[in-house]
């Protein structure tokens, strides 16, 4: 159960190239996790639920996969030496490693959401275009994220006649040893230990925010529109929102079950029916993560409506 580690122990290692796991590939995805996070074993790191459950977690514990990285410019500072008058150089420290990752195009809403992660205390797991997930291991058992000094979200560049504007993320890594000495790499598409073959490019999806709009509110039902902030209807492949409910506005945590929810001919617009309720102020919407049954959607999507 060993990692494809680059650690060569403390003894001198041979440098002949081994037919090991092939090149790691270019950075394509990044997941921001809070400092101190670690995955207990390689098997758990190869289990897709470990990732999806943490993406769909409560916000206080959530991991945040970033949008696809379309370009990553890494830079490795030279080692720092101190020069003495005698001509002797003394090694001071290894050079710092940084990366500026340009993300795929995104809308204003997503830029604002992404900016909320700016400068927070993050560490990072990286995945490559060869489906490898990169981290490091301090003991050969845990799978840990790269420690960072900072993660900064850079402002979007401007569109030009020949280039589109993109948001970039600048990451300064805290310890180059995590890339050289103790790096660990797993591949959920080829590792026999993986419970199933899965692709980070498919599983590593961030949570999409939804908004709810209620119309035609009556004692026995309403029309509920669910859509993303880009206007995309919540429909089709996402399935029927099984967690739909209403609650009294005064007691939002006490959920009142609905009788049925059926999508109309218009995508993302649902007819919701419930047992007759008395006149009052209500909230209609979906259960919030991490309890929502439909993953990858943030669903505090609740709209206020009144039964008169």
């Amino acid at each position, binding site marked *: 159960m060993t990692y494809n580690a680059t650690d060569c122990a403390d003894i001198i290692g041979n440098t002949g190239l081994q037919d090991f796991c092939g090149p790691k590939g270019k950075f394509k995805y990044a997941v921001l*996790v809070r400092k101190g996070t*670690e*995955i*207990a074993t390689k098997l*758990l790191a190869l*289990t897709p639920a*470990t990732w999806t*459950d*943490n993406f769909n977690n409560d916000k206080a514990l959530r991991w945040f996969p970033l949008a696809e990285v379309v370009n990553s410019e890494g830079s490795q500072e030279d080692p720092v030496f101190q020069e003495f008058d005698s001509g002797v150089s003394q090694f001071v420290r290894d050079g710092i490693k940084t990366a500026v990752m340009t993300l795929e195009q995104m809308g204003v809403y997503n830029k604002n959401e992404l900016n909320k992660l700016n400068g927070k205390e993050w560490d990072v797991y990286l995945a490559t275009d060869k489906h490898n997930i990169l981290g490091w291991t301090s003991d050969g058992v845990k799978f840990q994220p790269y420690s960072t000094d900072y993660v900064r979200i850079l402002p979007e560049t401007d569109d030009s006649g020949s280039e589109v504007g993109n948001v970039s993320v600048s990451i300064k890594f805290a310890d180059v040893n995590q890339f050289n000495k103790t790096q660990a790499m797993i591949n959920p598409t080829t590792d026999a230990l993986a419970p199933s073959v899965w692709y980070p490019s498919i599983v590593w999806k961030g949570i999409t925010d939804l908004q709810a709009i209620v119309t035609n509110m009556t004692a026995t039902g309403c029309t509920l529109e669910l859509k993303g902030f880009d206007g995309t209807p919540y429909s089709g492949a996402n399935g029927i929102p099984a967690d739909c409910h209403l609650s009294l506005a005064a007691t939002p945590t006490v959920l009142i079950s609905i009788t049925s929810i059926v999508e109309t001919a218009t995508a993302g617009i649902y007819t919701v029916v419930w047992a007759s309720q008395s006149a009052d102020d209500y909230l209609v919407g979906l259960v919030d993560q991490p309890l929502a049954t439909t993953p990858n959607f943030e669903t505090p999507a609740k709209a206020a409506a009144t039964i008169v």
Partner: protein
Amino acid sequence: MRIVYKGCTYRTENLTTELKQLMSKEIAKAELKEKNIANIKKVISEVKAKKGK
């Protein structure tokens, strides 16, 4: 059932018995530590309050 350990949430069915025990033990230890710290803070504030009188 879920267990949150060192920033990562796991489904208990994905954990081995040993890991489950280790995590539960560590979590209980951390909770006890927090409780003890809270108790100590409480005692200190009580003593300070008494001195103030």
